[in-house]
């Protein structure tokens, strides 16, 4: 099924991207060709193969439950575009 402009707008909304109409059409074509390529893979028989979410064949490493990080709130918020004391300051959230 070809990717529609509606699909592009929906994805853009979820990703919070503002697209110009020309960009929408360009992305529609890009996405369409990417999905077309992936669709080719679907012709393979993988019924006996476990889904691969990872190419590294290891279980996840674990760390001990220790609070070892130093407390440095000023430093942590330093790069934020806006802050108030050691809070991050953002446009008002309406809900």
């Amino acid at each position: 099924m070809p990717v529609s402009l509606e699909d592009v707008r929906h994805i853009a909304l979820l990703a919070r991207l503002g697209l110009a109409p020309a960009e929408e059409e360009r992305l529609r074509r890009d996405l369409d060709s990417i999905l077309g390529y992936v669709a080719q893979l679907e012709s393979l028989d993988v019924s006996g193969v476990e889904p691969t979410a990872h190419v590294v064949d290891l279980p996840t490493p674990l760390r001990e439950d220790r609070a070892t990080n130093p407390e440095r709130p000023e430093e942590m918020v330093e790069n934020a575009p806006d802050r108030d004391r050691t809070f991050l300051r953002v446009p008002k959230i309406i809900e």
Partner: protein
Amino acid sequence: MSDAPDYGPWEPVIGLEVHAQMLTESKLFCGCSAKFGAEPNAHTCPVCMGMPGVLPVLNRRAVEFATRTALATGCEIPRIARWARKNYFYPDLPKGYQISMYDEPLAVAGGVEVETPEGTRRVRLTRIHMEEDAGKNVHDAHDDHSLVDLNRAGVPLMEIVSEPDIRSAAEAADYLRSLRAILQYLAVCDGNMEEGSMRCDANVSIRRRGTTELGTRTEIKNMNSFRSVERAIDVEIRRQIEVVEGGGRIVQETRLWDADRGQTFPMRSKEAAHDYRYFPDPDLLPLVSDPAWVEEVRRGLPELPAARRDRFVRDHGIPPYDAAVLTARRDVADYFEAALAAHPNPKSISNWIMGDILRLVRERKLDDALVITEWPVAPAALAKLVALIDDGTISGKIAKTVFEEMVAGGGDPASIVEKKGLRQVTDTGAIEAAVDAVIAASPDKVAEYRSGKDKLFGFFVGQVMKATGGKANPQAVNDLLRSKLAG
């Protein structure tokens, strides 16, 4: 536990999603403290702030806590659990996604035994998975901005999802209490709903009694006490019935409970809010369960509420109801056993705990802390008080006075009795003198009593008790009054 309300031909169908904050020292994927109450953003680092180029490393104890919970609720633990990204934008979510689990959770297919007025019921669990918490937004009324504190971002949570097996609002609260008791016994979560360390969302729908098809459900959020959960669900059930009986249709939506107004309101929905586009997190390898380790965790499980309740009935001979109340909280059950070790009178100690102690705990709002470090009265002191009643030093009535003293100023019950001169008067001579004086002072009442007004007996007992400062042995007073009034 309350009476099942009457919903007429309608049957509610309820499933609960519980988020339980795990009592780890550090966060799920970084070495920041998971403690509550620090200066804003003091417990943050590049990992939990979502800065580029960092990698999450999983906390071993969080896996152990979740595994403990899974085993205690009879879940199966699949060989592989996989981390997934749940994508959405919100200022309290620094990475733009929450690390969670999706189609391969940590545990599946368990159940929780729930005590209801109709007996024990099993509510099945669909799954338990682990995920990270989000931060906190602070809204300043005088500002056109919001403030974000990410201390909570990355704190480990378990999400415990039930099947839609619950059939009333009261049963939902009973389920939550049972689940909380298990989490507290396992020492994996403190279960404090007011402070948000245990949160609950409810999926609610209705259908005609006798049918099996599920109706359209709504999701209720923002309930931060057991009472809120029960009220919100009841109100939502009634709302749905009214809509359907009025010819309307239920819309699938998220509704927020407003405790002050006693109503649920639709949440202003962000379009496509539920399109989370989950996918496996490429930063994290799968969590592979090691059967030997799982067995080790299983062997380390403590005695759980249901087993402890049965043991209390069997070994201490207290009624099942008492045992259920005492074991609903681990600290209360510990308190009972500590007092019992000092003075083996189970029924009496149980009565004191269920009455006076738990009343105090409620009054002082200690009822949501995991371990009550400052009980109003230490277990050994309560045991001593009961021993004083049992050996006849004080009456049960005077014991209440002593208890109030112990609560107010602390101290040893025996020395309070001595200091205040509360020792029970068992000397029949002294009691007899008081009885004679009371009879002599009220000739009219005596005549009425003798002409058949039996109810006046209580009046005489009261007068004698008053005259002796409440210290007379009640049995002796009764006996003497009865014989003297008989004339």
